[in-house]
């Protein structure tokens, strides 16, 4: 390999890595998906034809608990990232494990919220015209949960990497992707819960 190549590789490490860029573009794409669904929700709600029939209901308590869980999990994800940045490599696995447990409990909490909605008589399929609002809540939270599953896979890979001491000060790309994506999912959830609360 020529010296030119080696030099460019070393400068490359400090620049905005391609993998990070790919993550951001993926975030743009999935933001468009959530924008599409929430716009559809808004159009449906404000549609003159269905206005009278729109069913407003209080969100299940579990959704608010989910919000707290996803917030704390983001904090722990940030701690893991900081630990890697400060080269506290032995702290990373434990912090990531806590993040993972919180992520899994977010999934459980979402499931319980759906059960709660079912008990309120709000199903995915609607029988009354207005109950379409409930269908939307299922779709928005379900698509978000699907994204969370992807995030959990990333956290597990990061956890395995961290136990092999492959995440440290000089090898931050993967944990950075994990952190960026996980924070994105947290922000999306907070957006969704506020949107559903104020636009119910």
């Amino acid at each position, binding site marked *: 390999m020529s010296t*030119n190549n080696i030099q460019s590789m070393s*400068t490359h490490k400090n620049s905005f890595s391609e*993998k990070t860029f790919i993550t951001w573009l993926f975030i743009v794409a999935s933001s468009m*998906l959530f924008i599409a669904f929430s716009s559809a929700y808004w159009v*449906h709600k404000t549609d003159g034809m269905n206005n009278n029939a729109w069913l407003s209901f209080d969100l299940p308590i579990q959704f608010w608990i989910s919000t707290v869980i996803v917030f704390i999990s983001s904090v722990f994800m940030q701690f893991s990232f900081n630990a890697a940045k400060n080269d506290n490599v032995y702290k990373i696995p434990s912090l990531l494990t806590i993040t993972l447990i919180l992520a899994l409990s977010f999934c459980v909490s979402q499931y319980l919220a759906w059960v709660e909605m079912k008990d309120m008589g709000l199903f*995915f399929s609607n029988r009354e*015209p207005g109950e379409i609002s409930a269908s939307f809540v299922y779709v928005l939270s379900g698509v978000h949960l699907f994204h969370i599953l992807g995030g959990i896979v990333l956290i597990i890979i990061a956890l395995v990497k961290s136990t092999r001491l492959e995440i440290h000060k000089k090898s931050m790309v993967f944990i950075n992707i994990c952190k960026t994506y996980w924070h994105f999912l947290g922000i999306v959830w907070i957006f969704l819960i506020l949107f559903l609360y104020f636009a119910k």
Partner: protein
Amino acid sequence: MSTVEITANPTIDSPTHHDEHGHHDHHHKQSFISKYIFSTDHKMISKQYLITGIIMGCFGMGMSLLFRMQLAWPDETFPLFESLLGKWGKGGKLDPNYYMALVTIHGTIMVFYVLTAGLSGTFSNLLIPLQVGARDMASPFMNMLSYWFFFLSSVVLMSSFLVETGPASSGWTVYPPLSALEKAMPGSGLGTTLWLVAIILFIVSALLGGINYIVTVLNMRTKGMSMNRLPLTIWAFLLTAVLGLLSFPVLLGAGLLLIFDRSFGTSFYLSDIHLNGVGALSNSGGSPVLYQHLFWFLGHPEVYIILMPALGISSEVISTNARKPIFGYTAMVISLIGISFLSFIVWGHHMFITGMNPFLGTMFMYVTLIIAVPSAVKTFNYLATLWKGNIRFTTGMMFAIGLVSLFISGGLTGIYLGNAALDIQLHDSYFVVAHFHLVMGSAAIFGMFAGIYHWFPKMFGKMMNKTLGTLHFWLTFISAYLVFFPMHFMGLAGVPRRYYQFSLIPEFDIWMDVNVFITVSAFLGGVAQLLFLYNFFNSIFRGEKATKNPWESNTLEWTTPVEHIHGNWPGAIPTVYRGPHEYSRPDRESDYFPQNDPGNGEPEHYHAPVPIDTSYSGPKEKPSKVFFSSFAHLFLAKKVQA
């Protein structure tokens, strides 16, 4: 433009896995599978895209010929129908449901599989790394996944021809409720499910590919390749990928809601429907117009996803073969950006007659008509580039000029259709069919042919036969106009699109001769494509060997060896010293000036020396006196003392 070096990032050679091998001139042994099937090399993936696209194109064109036969001779029987389609062509008569299926799948194949994946997938993959000076894509693995998702999607779509109820048949837009109720028509059953699965796989493929294109263009350009030195092809591919990234997820959303309506009992798009024999359905509260909004939010940018790569390719081909710099490089880039931006706010012009608020319709009309401005900028720049050029009529060049012609004649009718009031008459008529087949169908396929003929030597190391190419061009060009031009008049007379048979309706019966004429012309176009297929595949194996830079072009892809190697350049990646269109410079002996040629201290752009007359220096006065006396000159009509 000054010669500012904007090297946005220091990433000169990307550390993709190719660099790990070190010696690029070494040929490492690759198994058949890793070389030809699960290849991660962008050049191989581009060939895979192209050949899959051509095969899908054959299916798409074949279907159009079948339904054109039905339209021209509705009362005849053709044993061909029965032998090809079995129970759908019983007794040689095409089944009406199957007619709808053919129209639907023809549209889907042409829009997504040929002109999105086949065009943008092929040439983005081939040209982005080669023209920006990168060893491969940012993520070669994702690139491979992108192709295989596309392949899987094609297989799923074509497999819908093998199911008992036939393929999706509610039009390429698959509007609910036809597409949402499994019992609405035969094709609404399993066929539509397969269609939706195919499109979701396609979206995944388009996103994986598009993300790669954006990262590669922005992050992996070689030294000296600033954004204002990018070939226009790359600008077009970059903006196309951005459009795809922003619009395809919305189609995914629309498709998911449709799947929920079909299979999970929701009613996002369904309301108060009585189905014959089934009675009232339980679905209520939904709105089919919601689907149209979501669909066309993708659907309109999709038109530019199809067209912009073709425009970028023709910019490059026209500049090279006119041996002139492209006229108004910056204007070309700005017009591409303008078209990209506008494409997101005009979707409502597909929905003028859905009962939309007339005020909203007017807004959509204005922004639609504004698209004429960047489109005209591009058209005039093509013509100005051709003007007084030293034109070389290569086959690629003829197709690129053909694109300009079709873009003008198809684009003009867009101004009619963009008017909310005129659209009441023209909507869903053959006028629309004529418009979009010229401006985006034929124009984009001409761009694709231009690209194939121009870059064939780069892809396969062989030249295509020029005589056959010329014949292919003229037959295709003539048949495109013969097929689509008469449709304008049918549309103006109110003939609706997607009808199975016109001979039973007296006011449309008078167009039967025109329908026969169109069908015969379409067969002429079909024969022309056979010439192309023969030329294409024959040249791969028996074509004349290509030289390194057969068109004497400036861009970086022609500096790579004819035989493809992993990592593209045997040594270091070339450095770029100037823009891509420096042709026929008076200060150079040869009429082209490759981007990687350091030259002998010539400026980046040639400026003709301006003759300055030093013998005359004008009158000398104090500025204040000039200022005040100027009013005296103005109001008192004082004579100028020269």
